[in-house]
C-alpha cells in the first residue's frame, strides 16, 4: 500500500468538497482507501461531497465498493453526495453492487461453540446413534447376504473376484512381510528367556500357538482394515458424494446388493486365507531364528510346531478371522454409505472405518477369548 494518499481533496473545508480520484482504483488500494473514509469526513467536514472520477482509468468492483461505502457514510452523516466524471461503463460496475446483499444476513448460521455439558450430551447421542446405525446396517446386510445365498446368480461375481484380488492377492505381500518379521521377533525375544532353561525347542511352540490362535487373525484383520476397510469406505463414500449411489437406486439396483455384497463376500472368502498365510509366514520367521540361532534342525522345529497346535486352534482362529472379515467389510461399507457432503466427509468416513474396525476387532477377539475359555 502506498504511503501517500491515493486521492487529492479540492474545495473548502466545511463547504463543497471534491475528492479527486485518479489512476487505478482497485483491490490493491481498497483497504487503504476504505480506512480513510472516516478521516475524509472528519478532517474536511464537507457540507457537500463530490467525487471526481474523470481521471480514473481503471475501476474494479472493489473500487466501486469503496464508492458505495463512501456514499453510505455520507448518507449517515446527511452530507449530500454525488459522483462526477463517471463513464457509462463505470456506472455499469457500480450498478452491479447490490446494497441489500452487502448487509444481507447469512441464511445459515455458523455453528456456535458448545459448552462442555452440551458436547458431552451431543457426543453420547451421536455414539448411541452410531451404534444404532451400525446394528441396523448389519441387519440389512445380513438379510441381503441370506438373499444372495439363495439367489447366487444375482451376486456380481466379477466384482467379487476383483475385490478378492484387491483384498487378498494385493494384500498378501504386506501381510506376509509383517507376519514373517513378527515371527522372527517373537522367536528371538522368547529364545533369550527360554535358552536359560535349555527350553529352546519351545520357541517353536510359542510362535505357533501365539500366531495361530491370536496374533495371526488379529494382525491380518488390522492390516485388512487399514488397506481394504478404508478403501471400501472411500469408494462408496465418493460414489455417494457424486450421487452415483442415487443413480444406482434410480436405475432399480439395490446399492447394498450392488456395492456392499461383493465386498463382503470377497472379504469373507479371502481374509481366512490371508490369516493362514500369516501364520505360515510367522512360523517361517520363527524357524529361521530356531535354525540359525538355537541350533534346531528344520525337522525338529516343524515337528514341535505340529505338536503344539491342535485342530481346535486352527478352526477357532479361522472362525475368528471370518468374523473379523465380516466386521471390517461391513463397517467399511456402512461408513461409506453414511457419507453426506463433500471430500472431507469421505476422509472422515475412511478414518472412522479404520478406527471402528480396529475397535471391533479387539472387542470380537476378547469375546472369543472368553467363550473359548469356557468351551
Amino acid at each position: 500500500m502506498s504511503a501517500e494518499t491515493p486521492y487529492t481533496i479540492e474545495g473548502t473545508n466545511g463547504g463543497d468538497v471534491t475528492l479527486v480520484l485518479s489512476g487505478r482504483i482497485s483491490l490493491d488500494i481498497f483497504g487503504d482507501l476504505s480506512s480513510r473514509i472516516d478521516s475524509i469526513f472528519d478532517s474536511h467536514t464537507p457540507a457537500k461531497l463530490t467525487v471526481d472520477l474523470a481521471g480514473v482509468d481503471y475501476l474494479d468492483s472493489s473500487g466501486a465498493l469503496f464508492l458505495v461505502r463512501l456514499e453510505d457514510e455520507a448518507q449517515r452523516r446527511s452530507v449530500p453526495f454525488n459522483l462526477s466524471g463517471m463513464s457509462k461503463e463505470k456506472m455499469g460496475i457500480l450498478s452491479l453492487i447490490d446494497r441489500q446483499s452487502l448487509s444481507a444476513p447469512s441464511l445459515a448460521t455458523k455453528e456456535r461453540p458448545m459448552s462442555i455439558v452440551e458436547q458431552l450430551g451431543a457426543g453420547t447421542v451421536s455414539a448411541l446413534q452410531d451404534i444404532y446405525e451400525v446394528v441396523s446396517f448389519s441387519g440389512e446386510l445380513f438379510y441381503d447376504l441370506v438373499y444372495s445365498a439363495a439367489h447366487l446368480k444375482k451376486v456380481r461375481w466379477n466384482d467379487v473376484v476383483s475385490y478378492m484380488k484387491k483384498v487378498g492377492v494385493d494384500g498378501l505381500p504386506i501381510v506376509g512381510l509383517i507376519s514373517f518379521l513378527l515371527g522372527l521377533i517373537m522367536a528371538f525375544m522368547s529364545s533369550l528367556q527360554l535358552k536359560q532353561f535349555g527350553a529352546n525347542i519351545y520357541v517353536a511352540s510359542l510362535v505357533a500357538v501365539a500366531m495361530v490362535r491370536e496374533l495371526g487373525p488379529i494382525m491380518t484383520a488390522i492390516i485388512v482394515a487399514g488397506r481394504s476397510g478404508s478403501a471400501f469406505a472411500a469408494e462408496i463414500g465418493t460414489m455417494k458424494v457424486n450421487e452415483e449411489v442415487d443413480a444406482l437406486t434410480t436405475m432399480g439396483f439395490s446399492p447394498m446388493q450392488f456395492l456392499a455384497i461383493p465386498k463382503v463376500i470377497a472379504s469373507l472368502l479371502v481374509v481366512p486365507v490371508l490369516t493362514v498365510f500369516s501364520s505360515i509366514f510367522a512360523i517361517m520367521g520363527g524357524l529361521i531364528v530356531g535354525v540359525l540361532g538355537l541350533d534346531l534342525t528344520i525337522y525338529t522345529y516343524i515337528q514341535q510346531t505340529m505338536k503344539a497346535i491342535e485342530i481346535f486352534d486352527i478352526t477357532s482362529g479361522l472362525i475368528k478371522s471370518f468374523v473379523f472379515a465380516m466386521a471390517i467389510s461391513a463397517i467399511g461399507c456402512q461408513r461409506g454409505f453414511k457419507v453426506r457432503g463433500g471430500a472431507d466427509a469421505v476422509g472422515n468416513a475412511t478414518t472412522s472405518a479404520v478406527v471402528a474396525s480396529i475397535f471391533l476387532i479387539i472387542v470380537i477377539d476378547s469375546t472369543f477369548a472368553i467363550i473359548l475359555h469356557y468351551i
Partner: protein
Amino acid sequence: MNTEGPVIKVEGLTVRYGDNTVLDNVSFEVRAGEIFVIMGGSGCGKSTLLKQIIGIETPAEGRIWINGTDTTELDDMELRKIHMGIGMLFQSSALFGSMTIGENVSLPLAEFTGLPADDIESIVKMKLGMVELAGYDNHFPSELSGGMKKRAGIARAMALDPAMLFLDEPSAGLDPVTSAELDVLIKKLNEGIGTTMVIVTHELETIFNISHRIIMLDREARGIIAEGDPRKLRTDSDDPRVTDFFNRRVTEKKNEGMTT
C-alpha cells in the same frame, strides 16, 4: 473494447490423451478486453482447451502465450504469478467442499491481499450479491443446487477482479432469467473493468448478445471449423456444421445414425 493485440495466443496446439488426439494443430488469438466464446459439440475438447490455456495441463505440441509470456516453458512459480491474474470457473464448479461458500470466495482475498477481515467480508458479500447468492456465505457447497454452485464458482473466480476470466459453461443449470442476468454481469464486468472473458457456452442467447468473437471446435476435425463474429457466421457460413449449430438443426446424417 480496445484493440491492444492478443492477450492469449495459441499456436499449433495439439492435445493427446494416450492415442486419442483431441485437438490437432489449433491456433487462435484472444484480444484484450474481448468476450471470446469457445463453442462446439459435447466432447470436442472445449474444457481441455481451457485447461491448456491456463497451463494446468501441458500440451503435446504447440505454444501458448499469455500476456506475451510463453506459458508452456514456465516453471511452477512463474505459472503461479500468471494464475494470480486469472479467474477460472470449472465445469464442475470445483468448490472446496470443506469450506463454506463465503470461505471459498474469501480464500484468494485472504491469501493475496492482506486486507482486514471485515473488508474481505464485505467484498465477499458484494461478489455473492453479484451472482444473486446474497446470504449464502455460511452454506456449504453440498447444501447448494447445481446452478447455485456454478454461480458460487463464478463469484470465486472473480474474487480478485482478475484481468482474464475463464468460464466453463457458466450458464449450465441456470434458468433463462438467471442466465440472462449472468450475461449482464459478464457484459458489465467486461465493459467497466475491461476484463477479458473466455467463455465455453452452448447458450445461443449469450453468444449472439454479448460475445465479440467465437471459435467453433469440432470433434471429427479435431480443431477449429469456424472463427469470427457469430452474427455474421450464422448467416454467411456455408459450412453446414456451423449453420446447424447456430440454427439448432439436426443434419440428415445424424438423424439416420440415430434410427439405425
